[in-house]
């Protein structure tokens, strides 16, 4: 079962929920931190990293000996990553989306593959949890391939918990697509509500069963609850606004370890998710 933990905006407690959920359940679980721009789960789970690999994408390099300067590569490139001059061809790696177009069209076989590093993926384990996260290289922009790489290690026989990046655009979709359940995390403030609405829209486009965790409950107002009721969005758990929890988080500690009563609450959350996934399957 794949559970993707997401939120329209950052800082709502996504990482708190995903790491503590993973720590609480009595099943084999893998945690994928797919927030590759700012991966933070490892700071809480402290995994021992066992393996590292880089995520690479092919970019073109032109063999000027063979090139006839026909401009076919430049014309197919929708991203402006190739400029053919009179006696030279310039490739702008940073603009390349690795779509393969230039490789396909070159009549002279002059486009060669060069590797560009987008980021890295690390594998490790933390007290029985198998852990994988990705990290975008500084000044690189291609996030979805790193997320796809992480997700290629999905083990269908165990529970997979994904920490998704914030927002509603392509990286988030890559982290939510084909999940069995999307767990949305929000805080009960006007910003939280506004971003939750966007996240719900996104989830509905994907048509995946979903539910809500309200973090820092009691902080703002009741509008998130009113919205959830109206939209039939099940509230699966509430974590109260509590300076103690904020302090635990600030030190990189786990809530379920410092406040053991939370373990059962997270187990409950997991049971509710399992039921909703089962219900979704039957409806299908």
């Amino acid at each position, binding site marked *: 079962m794949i559970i993707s933990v997401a939120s*329209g*905006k*950052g*800082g*709502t407690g996504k*990482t708190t929920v995903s790491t503590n959920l993973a720590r609480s359940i009595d099943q084999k679980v893998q945690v994928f931190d797919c*927030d590759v*721009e*700012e991966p*933070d789960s490892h*700071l*809480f789970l402290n995994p021992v990293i066992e393996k590292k690999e880089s995520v690479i994408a092919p970019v073109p390099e032109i063999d000027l000996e063979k090139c006839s300067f026909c401009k076919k590569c430049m014309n*197919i490139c*929708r991203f*402006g990553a190739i400029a053919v001059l009179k006696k030279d061809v310039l490739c*702008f790696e*940073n*603009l390349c*989306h*690795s*779509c*393969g*177009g230039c490789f*396909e*069209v070159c009549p002279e076989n002059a486009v060669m593959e060069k590797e560009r590093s987008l980021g890295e993926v690390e594998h490790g384990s933390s007290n029985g949890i198998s852990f994988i996260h990705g990290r*975008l290289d*500084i*000044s*690189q*922009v291609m*996030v979805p391939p790193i997320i796809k790489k992480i997700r290629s290690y999905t083990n269908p026989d165990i529970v997979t918990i994904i920490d998704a*990046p*914030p*927002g*509603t*655009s*392509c*990286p988030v*979709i890559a982290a939510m*697509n084909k999940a069995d359940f999307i767990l949305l995390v929000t805080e009960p*403030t*006007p*910003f939280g509500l*506004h*971003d939750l609405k*966007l996240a719900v*829209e*996104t989830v509905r*486009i*994907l048509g995946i069963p979903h539910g809500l965790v309200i973090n820092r409950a009691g*902080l*703002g*107002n009741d509008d998130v609850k009113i919205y959830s009721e109206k939209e039939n969005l099940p509230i699966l758990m509430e974590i109260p606004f509590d*300076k103690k929890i*904020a*302090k635990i*988080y*600030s*030190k*990189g500690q786990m809530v379920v370890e410092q406040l053991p009563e939370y373990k059962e609450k997270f187990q409950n959350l997991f049971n509710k998710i399992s039921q909703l996934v089962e219900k979704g399957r039957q409806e299908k």
Partner: protein
Amino acid sequence: MRELVILSGKGGTGKTSITSAFASLAENMVMCDADVDAADLHLILKPDFKVSSNFKGGYEAVINPDKCTGCGRCIEICKFDAVKELFEIDPIECEGCGVCVDLCPEQAIDFPEKLCGQWYISNTRFGPMVHARLGIAQENSGKLVSLVRQEAKKIAEKGNFDLILTDGPPGIGCPVIASIGQATAILIIAEPTVSGLHDMERVGQLSKRFNIPAMVCINKFDLNLDQTKKIEEFAKKTHIAVVGRIHFDRTFTESMVQEKNIFEYNPDSQTGIEVRQVWDKILSFPLFNTPVANNILQHL
């Protein structure tokens, strides 16, 4: 004219609350919400959405079943696995590279421009504002960020405004890179947590790479004094100027619930005073007062 871009790494550190507070303090300024993916600034600034325009940020391949012979060439060449078995293209997976469009032997693939969002020029009680809304599940947020910043710049130049205040997106990827190119300085709003430190390190590296002077302000600093000190030490080591600390205070949230900024809600609160001090520090930051040389990469 200067532009201050406010970033936070992960988000949720109080960036937008602080930006909206600065709106009360800054004079002669244009606001720009570059967090196009999850824009929140308008909830406080209440822009009037005076002019609205479409953002067409890309293209999308669509197979015309009447022309398609099912030869399978598109499946073979699409590097993004966007073409599904029955020769339909999944709009969510399609990167809009157009390679299948060009190479389909039957010319059976259309390539319409896609509406990716909306952007707006508005008036607010603090001055003009440029903001946007990226469509759900759309890409090219970087392009939209560049667009709102360019429009804000145009307004600033035309109206002789001295300052653009830009609320930046989270992360360090494409939208963030698009939001900092050619900015005068960035301000990082950090939280004193282990992840706050980690996120700030990455934003700091990015600002170095693009040669933009950076400042940091620690919000909710009393939550964890050890982490606050660590952030400040790290900042000093990496030449990020520390411009202040702000207490952990529910007044921020309370003012947000009232849809006001802190100076409208409770100007004499401790937080209000601290935000004012941070703002004064920013204004006196030397690099914020020297015109920056040509920094980099507008083509994203």
